[in-house]
């Protein structure tokens, strides 16, 4: 396959205008809940802070919206990804092998003024096939998962 990597300039919420590589581009065919019209996002790591647990999911067309993502297993080791196989198939994850190799699991973080109240949305995890660069906001079938899990509290429980 020909290497088609190229850089584009996008206007990001956290870093202003930045150059990003086309291989950071993730297509969300269905958009995200409430933001269905935006299909192109860029997955950005924290500039100058590579060890940060957070990643940015930046809309590729506009500054807004962007989201902060975290790997849920970093604060909740017993997190169970329980979504319908159909949702995984939509991003090209058809087998357990696929999942093991290519599936990235994130949840969206909300950080209020008082950051000790930061929460994670375990009900609508953001799933990315890192090989196909396709993403979906799935719906967790686990009834225990809501949209506002306090991250600090969850860490105490782990």
């Amino acid at each position, binding site marked *: 396959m020909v290497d088609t990597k190229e850089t584009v300039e996008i206007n990001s*919420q*956290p*870093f202003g205008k930045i150059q990003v590589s086309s291989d950071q581009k993730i297509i969300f*065919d*269905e958009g*995200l*809940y*409430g*933001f269905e019209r935006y299909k192109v996002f860029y997955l950005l790591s*924290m*500039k100058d*802070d590579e*060890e*940060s*647990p*957070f990643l*940015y999911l930046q809309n590729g067309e506009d500054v*807004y*919206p*962007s*989201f*902060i993502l975290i790997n849920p297993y*970093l*604060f909740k080791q017993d997190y169970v990804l329980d979504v319908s196989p*159909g949702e995984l*198939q*939509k991003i090209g994850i058809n087998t357990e092998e696929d999942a093991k190799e290519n599936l990235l699991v994130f949840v*969206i*973080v*909300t*950080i209020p003024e008082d*950051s000790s109240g*930061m929460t994670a*949305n375990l*009900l*609508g995890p953001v799933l990315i096939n890192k090989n196909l660069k396709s993403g979906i*906001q799935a*719906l967790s079938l686990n009834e225990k998962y*809501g*949209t*506002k899990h306090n991250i600090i509290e969850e*860490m105490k429980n782990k």
Partner: protein
Amino acid sequence: MLVLARKSNQSIMIGDDIEIRIVDIKGDQVKIGINAPKNIRVDRKEIYDLIKTANIESSKTPDLLKIKEIGDMFKKKQ
């Protein structure tokens, strides 16, 4: 809103590829079957609204300094 009366096992077509079928009616509960293309999301509205509301709240990300601070705090707790 368009309102149509349907009986059990009758359907409604939306466009040419979405079918909504009344599967069963018992008391105040209706079972609805939906046939739609794979790229059409079908969700219970209350769940849809819940995630939509959460996304809107999360969609304005705080400034970098704050995220750096929190990230550092996180690293210490690991």
